[in-house]
């Protein structure tokens, strides 16, 4: 037990925050370049994710935003070899900590998953095995990745339960998932994702199935754990209001492409892509007198199906700022001239929109 404690930055939480890994905070841990994913269909493969690129630095939180089906989850799952049948990566590179993810063997990927890259999934109600005690489920990755004995793993599982703020901590190890509330289960999921102290935690809409007060608790929990453990977080969501207080940087996905990539403050201060603006505009807001404003604006139309994407900008059919060029050429993701070079937008009208907004 004692050596376990001294080896583990998580368990030495009483110590100063200096116990976090002393790596260069600006070092890139995960780098994705031109990732493309295809799904096999009757009429040949259809492209779901079309060349997305991003870098994740140590300790950074990256928000990935977009509506359902835009490829947010798939691109993350593809990095660790968890794509469903018939869906495969057809292009691009992905490097994790200097290693090429896309050419790794199944066995190496398995070591990576849960060990160095942790996952938290959307639905805590169904993401835990209903016939296994929570303690056993928490212990599983520790036994497999860390080679702990069952007793050691159980002790560690109890500490993890405390770490994620489950009241009663290790006394809940013998509970079955159905005996816990949704929020508690999501804490257990987070504990599982963190069990082996991964350097990257991928949280796939972890708060979508929870009510607002619990959402806030989970966000707070992940933020505090990230600070304590010095890990990077990729937070997939469609909730722009939630991610604002959480992420360092946001990428906005639409129909499998990145349409906007910006530091979080810059994005909210100067949203540029019409899609991002549409998303932000459709967040409900209370008017000054406490009543809701007029009818909530929404983006008309639906995203194009994979395989039926327009030849030009994928958002063009739904876009109010559409110009003739949008229907024939695909805009590239690039900084808007005169703006923050870290704020990149894939839109021909970016400059006009920027100026009109000021």
């Amino acid at each position, binding site marked *: 037990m004692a050596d376990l404690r001294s080896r583990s930055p998580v*368990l030495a*939480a*009483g110590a100063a925050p200096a116990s976090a890994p002393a790596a260069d905070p600006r070092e890139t841990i995960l780098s994705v370049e031109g990732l493309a994913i295809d799904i096999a269909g009757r009429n040949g493969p259809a492209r779901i994710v079309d060349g997305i690129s991003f870098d994740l630095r140590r300790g950074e939180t990256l928000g990935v935003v977009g509506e359902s089906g835009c490829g947010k989850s798939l691109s993350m799952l593809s990095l*660790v070899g*968890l794509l*469903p*049948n018939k869906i495969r990566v057809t292009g691009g590179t992905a490097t994790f900590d200097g290693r090429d993810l896309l050419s790794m063997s199944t066995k190496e*990927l*398995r*070591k*990576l*998953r*849960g*060990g160095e890259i942790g*996952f938290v*999934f*959307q*639905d805590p109600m*169904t*993401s*835990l*095995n*209903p*016939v*296994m*005690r929570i303690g056993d489920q928490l212990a*599983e*990755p520790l036994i*497999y*990745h860390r080679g702990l004995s069952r007793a050691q793993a159980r002790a560690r599982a109890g*500490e993890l339960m*405390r*770490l*994620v*703020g*489950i*009241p*009663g*901590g290790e006394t809940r190890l*013998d*509970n*079955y998932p*159905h*005996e816990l*509330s949704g*929020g*508690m289960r999501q*804490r257990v*999921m987070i504990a*599982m994702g963190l*069990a082996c102290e991964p350097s990257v935690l991928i949280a796939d809409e972890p708060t979508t199935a929870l009510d607002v007060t619990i959402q*806030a*608790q989970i966000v*707070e*929990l992940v933020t*505090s754990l990230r600070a304590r453990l010095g890990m990077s977080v990729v937070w997939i969501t469609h909730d722009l209001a939630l991610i604002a207080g959480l992420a360092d940087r946001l990428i906005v996905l639409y129909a499998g492409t990145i349409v906007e990539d910006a530091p979080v403050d810059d994005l909210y201060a100067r949203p540029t892509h019409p899609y991002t603006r549409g998303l932000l505009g459709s967040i409900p807001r209370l008017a000054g007198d406490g009543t809701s404003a007029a009818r909530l604006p929404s983006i008309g139309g639906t995203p194009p199906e994979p395989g039926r994407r327009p030849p030009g900008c994928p958002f063009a059919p739904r876009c109010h700022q559409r110009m003739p060029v949008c229907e024939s050429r695909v805009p590239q993701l690039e900084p808007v001239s005169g703006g923050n070079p870290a704020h990149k937008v894939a839109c021909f009208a970016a400059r006009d929109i920027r100026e009109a907004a000021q």
Partner: protein
Amino acid sequence: MSAPDAAAPIELQVEPPVSLWRDAWHRLTRNRLAMAGLVIVAILTFLAVFGPWIAPYDFLAQDLDARNQAPSLLHLFGTDDLGRDVFSRVIYGARTAFVVAIVVTAIAVVIGVVLGAAAGYFGGLLDTFVMWLTDVTMSIPNLLLVVVINTSLKPPLARWMEARYLETLDPIYRNSIWIDFVLVFGSMALITWPPYARLVRAQVLSIRNRPYVTAARALGLPTLTILMRYIVPNALGSLIVAVSAGLGTAMVLESAFSFLGVGVNPPAPSWGNMISDGLRVWQHHPHLLAAPAILLGIATVGFSFLGDGLNDALNPKGMK
């Protein structure tokens, strides 16, 4: 170490953990028919296990002075044409029925779970092959297969036993009863596994895409662990129901084969061959037919009540 403040307002639950199984048990005990089935099965199991201590006579002991007697205090179910006590033979018959049912079902379930789980989880060619195998097996008439196996394998096996006996003089090789058993186990397991394989495959197909399986894969657990600890246990509910029904079916099947003379052969006691013997003289000695037939009926009803009850207890969503 202090927990994050966010957790403070949530209260502690004080109840002890309740497992899914205990929950199911609770539902089972409230179902009267199921309890009746459980009691019948329990009594039969008791008879089968403690048969030698309960039976008043040896099942082979003949009393030629007391042949074909009607039921009396001395012989509860009367005696047969060789003066053997029918009550004792029926109890030993329960032993036969249970041993056959349990061994056959166990073999069939193991084959079914392994093939079905592998087919469902890995899919592809393996799945096609396993499903093809179950279709082929199910398309062969049961009775025909058992007759073929018995008639083709039994004589050479018996000859080999005879030769071994002459060679070694070991009395083990003289007992022909267990050849019957081995053949019955083997042939019946061979025809009863496909439904289990199909059931498990279907369950695995639906379970393997559940979020907790993806979550387990995202934890990097090995495939075998995922199959054995995440998928198969969640398919267990339906499997238990199928096994409970399958035990009853296997008993009837054993009796049917023994009745036709391709199962357990006399002098080994089996309800099937007792019914077959009793049928010839039922007009004069109806008790010889009634005793094994009624017991077989009760056993079948017991297992099917229990199976239904388990189904309701383990799959409560289907219950109104």
